[in-house]
């Protein structure tokens, strides 16, 4: 090589050397720069800058450290780094909306955020330190952040019992039970009751084939004589629990044919006293008396009727039993009379009480139902079906199993179906890859899947067997919340205390009282020692509260203590002997340990005490704002006009001391009376007595 050229080469090399060194150094610098610019570090620097603009900088930065901050809960297997960016999460001064996200403080909740972290409630990926990884669905992490409207699902993961603080979750759990989801699905915390849908063993004797056809086709429509009432959506609590199965015409014909043949025993028409029937023949206006009896008996406490007022048709009444607006177009009249006399003979599990009927009452009420609660055009759009052919019956029998009818309905001799639908006990933990989306256009998330499936089962699976429900938007959100709470796992050690076992111990007294208790189904509305319904007052301590004679009189002619309520105790026509048996038991057994009957001596009350008590009641404490005496006062609490005949004086004393100790959820405020004031008030209240029986109350009727 020529020496001059060597100089050139080395110069060129020197250039290349210099450039590659710069490039190399720049390449090396990428890593620290990237490290410096990591998103969590940028948020932390932003936080320091932000804190310096606030008046309480010192406090905000007191426990700030420039590092990944982490909450570790080993027993729940949770590592949570959310507080790295959400630095202000526990700073009370950052509560309001003037603090920008991600630095705003968490609203007040019962759990300490520093102890429990974020992902237990909000889900998402706690380990992540990048915004997208933490909040969204990524390839490595399928559970995104749970939207706030479903957040109560996370409460339900640990709090398996009812939780009044989480109303949406409670409502969702209630819907799951009410809609009998447990008929086909396994659900966490919901047990299969003894009876889901009605027993169909004898359905052929109760309803006609045409009615079954109509019911199977569209259980959601009732037609009123003045137009069509659509009972849309579960929001109206009177919607039938039977969902709509998408049945074809020949399926409807076959199933209705099969079911109409089910009749193991023929119904024997009840023979009325001929004198009653003869009286009816002469006095057709007696049907009005039937209506009066129907109202006096308060059938509407459990059953609803369509009522038209001011051009608006509404269903009014309770939802324990079925809606009755057109029941006479549904059931066979002979069946109706047999049922009214003894519902348990037809359905052993029926919750309808066995009334004491006189022939006259039974005749009038059944005639009223047959002539007034009817609609001749109800079945006018049903094709003429005739009696079913053998092929139809056989197809119907097969369809009964194929459609899963046996999951809710029992037919004697047909094996009941269980687990017809998929197990949902761990639905809330399912990942996207475990779900079937079909060709639907919905977002690929668990929440969207559940909502789409419940709204229209066919939208995610064209071959779905699940029937069609109609839910309002708020109920859909509630139901989704309850389903998302099903985590399938057992609770971590130390948290088992959160599961309060539901009260399954049935209160089933024995003896003469037990028989009457079953006959009148007291527990459907009243609660005894934690078992029973919640429609009517808890009677666990009724013996301490009410006087024996009052109980007897009340059972014979129940007059509500709160006249403004629509739902009242039905009139069972209980004879005196039975009422005495019931009152004996209640007075003897249902005693509160807090009420000492011997402690208060009524005879020691003086007129001075009474007049002081009256003054306290009317002036100092103004009890009349909630209670009525005579014709004036409020109607929040019970009417006290007859309290001297109603309650025991020891109960009043204890009630004035601490009402919540006797009825835990009563809204009577506990006040700080002195002993003297309490005795004076008791003395005054015990003088309030009404004589003579009041008039018989009558339920709100149709068309009034």
């Amino acid at each position, binding site marked *: 090589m020529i020496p001059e050229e060597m100089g050139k080469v080395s110069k060129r090399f020197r250039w290349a050397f210099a450039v590659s060194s710069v490039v190399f150094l720049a390449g090396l610098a990428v890593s620290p720069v990237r490290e410096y610019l990591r998103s969590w570090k940028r948020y932390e620097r932003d936080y320091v800058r932000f804190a310096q603009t606030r008046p309480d900088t*010192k406090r905000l930065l007191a426990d700030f450290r420039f590092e990944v901050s982490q909450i570790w809960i080993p027993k729940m297997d949770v590592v949570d780094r959310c507080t790295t960016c959400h630095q202000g999460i526990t700073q009370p001064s950052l509560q309001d909306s003037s603090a920008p996200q991600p630095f705003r403080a968490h609203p007040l909740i019962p759990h300490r955020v520093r102890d429990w972290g974020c992902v237990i409630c909000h889900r998402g990926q706690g380990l992540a330190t990048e915004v997208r990884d933490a909040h969204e669905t990524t390839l490595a992490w399928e559970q995104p952040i749970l939207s706030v409207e479903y957040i109560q699902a996370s409460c339900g993961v640990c709090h398996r019992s009812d939780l009044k603080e989480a109303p949406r979750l409670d409502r969702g759990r209630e819907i799951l039970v009410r809609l009998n989801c447990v008929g086909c699905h396994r659900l966490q915390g919901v047990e299969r009751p003894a009876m889901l849908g009605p027993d169909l063993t004898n359905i052929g004797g109760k309803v006609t084939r045409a009615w079954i056809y109509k019911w199977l086709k569209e259980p959601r429509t009732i037609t009123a004589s003045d137009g069509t009432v659509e009972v849309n959506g579960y929001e109206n609590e009177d919607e039938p629990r039977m969902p709509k199965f998408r049945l074809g015409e020949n399926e409807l014909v076959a199933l209705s044919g099969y079911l109409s043949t089910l009749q193991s025993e023929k119904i024997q028409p009840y023979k009325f006293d001929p004198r009653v029937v003869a009286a009816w023949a002469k006095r057709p206006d007696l049907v009005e008396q039937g209506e009066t009896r129907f109202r006096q008996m308060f059938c509407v406490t459990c059953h609803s009727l369509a009522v038209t007022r001011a051009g608006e048709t509404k269903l009014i009444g309770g939802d324990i039993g079925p809606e009755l607006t057109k029941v006479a177009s549904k059931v066979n009249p002979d069946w109706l009379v047999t049922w009214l006399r003894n519902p348990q003979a037809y359905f052993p599990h029926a919750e309808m009480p066995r009334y004491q009927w006189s022939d006259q009452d039974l005749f009038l009420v059944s005639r009223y139902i047959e002539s007034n609660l009817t609609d001749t055009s109800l079945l006018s759009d049903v094709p003429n079906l005739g009696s079913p052919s053998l092929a139809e019956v056989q197809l119907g029998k097969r369809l009964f199993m194929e459609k899963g009818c046996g999951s809710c309905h029992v037919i004697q001799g047909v094996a009941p179906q269980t687990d017809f639908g998929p197990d949902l006990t761990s639905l809330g933990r399912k990942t996207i890859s475990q779900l079937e989306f079909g060709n639907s256009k919905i977002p690929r998330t668990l929440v969207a899947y559940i909502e789409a499936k419940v709204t229209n089962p066919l939208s995610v699976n064209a071959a779905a067997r699940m029937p069609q429900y109609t839910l309002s938007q708020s109920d859909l959100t509630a139901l989704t919340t309850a389903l998302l709470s099903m985590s399938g796992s057992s609770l971590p050690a130390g948290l088992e205390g959160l599961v309060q076992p539901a009260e399954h111990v049935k209160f089933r007294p024995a003896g003469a009282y037990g028989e009457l208790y079953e006959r009148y189904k007291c527990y459907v509305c009243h609660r005894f020692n934690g078992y029973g319904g919640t429609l009517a007052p808890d009677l666990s301590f009724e013996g301490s509260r009410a006087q024996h004679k009052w109980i007897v009189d009340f059972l014979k002619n129940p007059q509500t203590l709160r006249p403004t309520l629509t739902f009242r105790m039905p009139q069972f026509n209980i004879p005196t002997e039975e009422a005495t048996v019931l009152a004996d038991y209640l007075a003897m057994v249902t005693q509160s340990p807090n009420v000492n009957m011997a402690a208060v001596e009524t005879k020691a009350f003086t007129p001075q005490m009474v007049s002081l008590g009256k003054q306290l009641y009317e002036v100092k404490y103004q009890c009349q704002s909630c209670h009525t005496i005579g014709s004036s006062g409020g*109607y929040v609490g019970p009417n006290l006009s007859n309290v001297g005949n109603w309650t025991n004086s020891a109960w009043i004393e204890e009630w004035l001391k601490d009402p919540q100790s006797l009825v835990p959820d009563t809204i009577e405020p506990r006040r700080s009376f002195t002993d003297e004031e309490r005795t004076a008030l008791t003395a005054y209240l015990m003088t309030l007595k009404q004589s003579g029986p009041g008039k018989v109350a009558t339920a709100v009727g149709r068309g009034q």
Partner: protein
Amino acid sequence: MKPRFVMVLLLVAGASLGTSCHRKPAAAKSDPLSRAYDSEQDWNDPQRVIPLNYQEAQGKRVFYQYCVWCHADSTPAGPSNRSNLNPMPPLASDGAVFNSLSDDLLRNTITLGGSAVGKSTLMPPWGNTLKQDDVNAVITFYRAIAQPPYQPPARPGPQYSVR
């Protein structure tokens, strides 16, 4: 040739830096009103739904158990007792009445009763029945549903500079 090579290298480095820049979290969905712990219908405008946070939702629960009977025109069971009382209790949503009253005054009225703060004795004291948390929750619920809307008083400035 060489400058081009350098350019390529710089571009690659720049791109790799760019990806690590932090991104703003996705904007909230279109309907923020239903996206809340719980909600309450505006008492004057059934179309409007008011979102409630946890504490306000607890206030709603306590309100509908204890207060609704006299502080609303419709109740969950039976007619309202409100029109029955003289003086008539204000509606819970009546911002014209409640907005000017401080949290402390409301807390005392609920806890000690109307007579303790110079109001009607018809309002009983709830201090022995409700927990302090419940009382605070009810106040936040009143604030949430107030019409005209409640404006919290300006935060008192710091007494002295912390810096």
